[in-house]
């Protein structure tokens, strides 16, 4: 009874059911995809800005300096193994996400 719908229903009486509800539903039907599209556009712009500025600020100088972040397999080597030493550590060290 305390809900918004309940108040509107009491205030407008039968008009609420006959006119406002279908009208509201139509608005929702139209607005939902529009809202989603706007959200996607905003999301795209923010991510593009992050990508261009955030990633670019590291990537661009790296490119100029010839820094490689991945080994692209363009050189022949005697071995492609990397030595690692993964063995049991103390419990607390497994609490790290890195």
């Amino acid at each position: 009874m305390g809900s918004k719908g309940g108040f509107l229903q009491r205030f407008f009486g039968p008009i609420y059911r006959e006119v406002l509800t279908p009208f509201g539903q139509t608005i929702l039907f139209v607005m939902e995809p529009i809202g989603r599209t706007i959200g996607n556009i905003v999301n795209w712009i923010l991510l593009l800005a992050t990508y261009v500025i955030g990633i670019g600020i590291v990537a661009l100088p790296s490119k100029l300096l010839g820094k490689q972040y991945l080994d692209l397999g363009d050189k022949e080597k005697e071995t492609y193994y990397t030595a690692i030493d993964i063995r049991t550590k103390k419990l607390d060290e497994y609490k790290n996400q890195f």
Partner: protein
Amino acid sequence: MYILGISCYYHDSAAAILKDGIIIAAAEEERFTRKKHDTSFPLNAINYCLKEAGIMGKQLDHIAFYEKPILKFERLMAQHFQAWPKSFPSFHKAMPSWMVEKLRVPKTIAKKTGYKGDVLFIEHHLAHAASAFLPSPFEKAAILTVDGVGEWSTTTLGVGDGNDIHLTKEIKFPHSLGLLYSTVTAFLGFTVNNSEYKVMGLAPYGKPKHVDKFRKLIRIAKDGSYALDMSYFVYHYKMTMPGPKFIELFGKPRKPSDPMTHHYEDIASSLQVITEEIIFGLLNYLHQETKLDNLCMAGGVALNTVANGKILDKTPFKKIWIQPAASDAGTSLGAAIYTYNTILGKKRVYKQTHAYLGPEYSTTEIEDYLKANSIIYSTFKTDKEMMDTTAKLIAEDNVIGWFQGRMEWGPRALGSRSILSNASNPDMKEILNLKVKHREKFRPFAPVVTVEDANDWFEMKRDEVPYMLFIFPVRKEKRKIIPSVTHVDGSGRMQTISKEQNPRYYGVIKAFEKITKVPVLINTSFNIRGEPIVCTPHDAYRCMMGTGIDYLVMDRFLIKRDDNPKDMWDSEALATD
């Protein structure tokens, strides 16, 4: 002590729970949500595990997660730094899920499970290695893990000794045998992270004419290590996998609707040759370094059953154990068991002897379901009657939905959620495809054989293969007797079953042997193409009624399709990749 292992957000989300070091439940999320290879947080699988343990999330002693998210994020950033500004589409697609969920794992776990403690993060390939070694029968073994990619590793080599695992060598992203296989999967018009096994099934139809071309894009060193020439690939910065140079080398990629030509079959065959060469190279080096006879394997590439079947011939290893859930799902089990045995140093008390770790439904629950839905059924008085009747129906060329006991852990149906049929009928492959599976014609169906008869029917290199992880040749003189499970190259991806592992399943095969003198059935997963294997009685009934399965044997109940309203839904319309 209860430890929960979780894997999620990449593919095959899953959960597994240990009670005092023993795995008491494990399941993939896809079985509950009905989304194949579901990547979402495995809340349903976790709830099932907790229910099986009879505890709440807050009563868990530890939760272990199957990777180190920040290390993985670091690799993702490295990809974008390397490929900037070409990688924006993949950045745009991947980043929201990293921000919303993948970098918030402890919060998500606390919120969804009620667990208050610290989450333990186990490196991805270490979790694979643990899933392969710690539940194995070996006290000491060499370990090989190969998959698409974890944090940085795509392949690791190491040793398991008692409670400890020591990984000593790795091959790092972007050099990945798993991703090479996935690239060809995409090139052949199949779905990546889903249909790699189809490429393996396609290989025997072709000839390895393109092996030399593959040698241009992969370098294999004398010690078995390998590196891809990334100028042929774009998966390190794009959402697609083969690059323009790859397409120039192999020709036009196949679209899913295109016919399968010999050219594509030859590519699949060549890939299989290269894959085997790499796997055996890695294993021979691993043996040289460790001098151990026992081998444990996990990672998606360990599901290459054709290569697995040749390991004992092509390498010096004498015994192999492969985690039945070798793909990422198995890392939930690996993370949990690693926590118990290795981090906490508790004695290894669990040896995995079966894969029946999923949900089960009691006779009363199933009967209540049947009654509540007005399903017409009959009841077997005894197990013997059930097994004899089922065998008779199979011998009469009926297709049987078989729903018994606990659901399987891992990607294979092993006699709990299976479709069983007559392997002796040469038309059964077509019948199954027409009635139920709607599969590509080139894909074989797998046999199940009683363990004591296995050697008479297959050229076995092992005593038993309970998890369908090895392909062996069908004996030449038997190929005509079981044509529906003999692949074009004379092989079969077999499962052996003993009475101890699954008495009812074993009993049906024995009863079938009494009628036909053949102790072999077709065992295929109880699902239609594109759907996960059934989990609940409702899933099973729905699958039967939407397909052409003739009978459903669910616990002690027999449901005949013709007795019940048909066409509950159109499975054929929904059959996807």
